[in-house]
């Protein structure tokens, strides 16, 4: 935010895209976060199958909870990583010095994080259909919509909190402490909607939940746009 006149840097959308593309290119070359996310979520899924006997309970009852717990935990890896990499060579300072709106930095980071979690979900959803035996092709369109809607909110909050955790010099532990209680409405809604979809109900049956999730996404996007500036400041 420069005072007096337009900032000389790129516009909001362009800046957002540049930041996201940078993060994704970095991830594409190293596969640092994605490899640990996929591995970690496989382990979590296996642990869940030990903890609950998933073969005796109908899949619509347990699978939503298992899936979203796995997504949330592996999301933490991606979110924390996106600011840890910036700290190693202090490139966060360079980002802060760049003449772009702080909101655009946030949006770029959140977009890259969102893409990472979506990639993980694209791997995990077919796998979970194999593991837990539900008919993925039949529910795919509504399931993709539900997953997308809720992941947006989780990625937004995760990005904001990862920045806060990085600022106080704590990593994943603090991030998880912040992310899970704050995103609880979203997680409840995600589980409710996913379970309705797996039971073969139409999306209209969970319309209030979808509205809550959509409202959550919009509200916290706006809140993060305004407050990210204060998080980055040094």
């Amino acid at each position, binding site marked *: 935010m420069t005072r007096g006149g337009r900032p000389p840097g790129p516009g909001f959308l362009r800046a957002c895209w540049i930041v996201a593309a940078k993060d994704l290119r970095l991830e594409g070359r190293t596969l640092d976060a994605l490899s640990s996310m996929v591995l970690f979520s496989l382990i979590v899924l296996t642990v869940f199958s030990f903890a609950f006997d998933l073969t005796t309970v109908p899949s619509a009852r347990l699978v939503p909870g298992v899936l979203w717990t796995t997504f949330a935990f592996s999301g933490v890896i991606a979110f924390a990583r996106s600011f840890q990499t910036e700290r190693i060579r202090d490139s966060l300072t360079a980002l802060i010095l760049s003449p772009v709106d702080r909101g655009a930095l946030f949006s770029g980071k959140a977009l890259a994080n969102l893409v990472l979690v979506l990639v993980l979900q694209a791997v995990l959803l077919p796998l979970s259909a194999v593991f837990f035996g539900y008919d993925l092709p039949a529910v795919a369109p509504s399931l993709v919509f539900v997953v997308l809607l809720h992941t947006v909110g989780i990625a937004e909050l995760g990005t904001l909190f990862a920045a806060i955790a990085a*600022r*106080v010099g704590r990593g994943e532990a603090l991030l998880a402490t*912040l992310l899970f*209680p704050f995103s*609880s*409405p979203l997680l*409840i809604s995600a589980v*409710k909607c996913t379970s309705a979809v797996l039971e073969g109900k139409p999306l209209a049956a969970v319309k209030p939940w979808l509205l809550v999730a959509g409202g959550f996404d919009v*509200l916290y996007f706006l809140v993060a746009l305004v407050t990210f500036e*204060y998080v980055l400041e040094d």
Partner: protein
Amino acid sequence: MDRLSHPVTVALLVIVGVLMLGANFMVFLYAPDERVMGAVQRIFYFHVPAAMVAFASTFVMLGASIAYLWTRRRIWDNLARSATELALLFCALVLVTGPIWARPAWGVWWTWEAKLTTTLLLGLLLAACVLVRSYADSAEKGARLASVLGIVAALDVPIIYRAVDWWRGQHPVVFGPGKKDPLAPEMRNTLSFCLLAFLSLYALLLLLRTRIACHEDRVQDATEMLGARGESA
């Protein structure tokens, strides 16, 4: 307002003391026994005001956090910090008194019901705010990050409530739109009086805690000044 013996503080202290004594009198001697639950229902007169104060304090935190980010005056952060801690304190009171009542009334200590879950989550959010403030390596950074978190937390509370309410609900709804007032006049008087007593207790604690925070700031400033002088000498 610097000394503890300041007339305003003393006056508030006396008022709170009288109100709290009066509240105890009303709860235990004036209010009648509840028909079904009996004496254990009297915990209601502490539980409900504590819950109201906890949620009110969360919104004081929201206002003070916004004011701090806007003006950057440390008094607002001191207020936000005090409101956060007090909200956590009253939240803990709610979470302790609730199960004591729930055990005889519902037969269980805890149930994942909307108001209980919301209060528990509120406690976790407030604890997160306190944690971030204490983790930060400088007071200014802690204030900034905790303010951001405080705003996010306070906005989250109504959404959490909406969500867990749809998720499940069994908490007794004593007041609500379209409901006839279910309380006997003595019960209503007692509740109003207890609410007043708790609000004045909250006001006093907020004042004292904020003032301590301001003193801490001054000690911090003085220490830094002495340190700087020591280095230059």
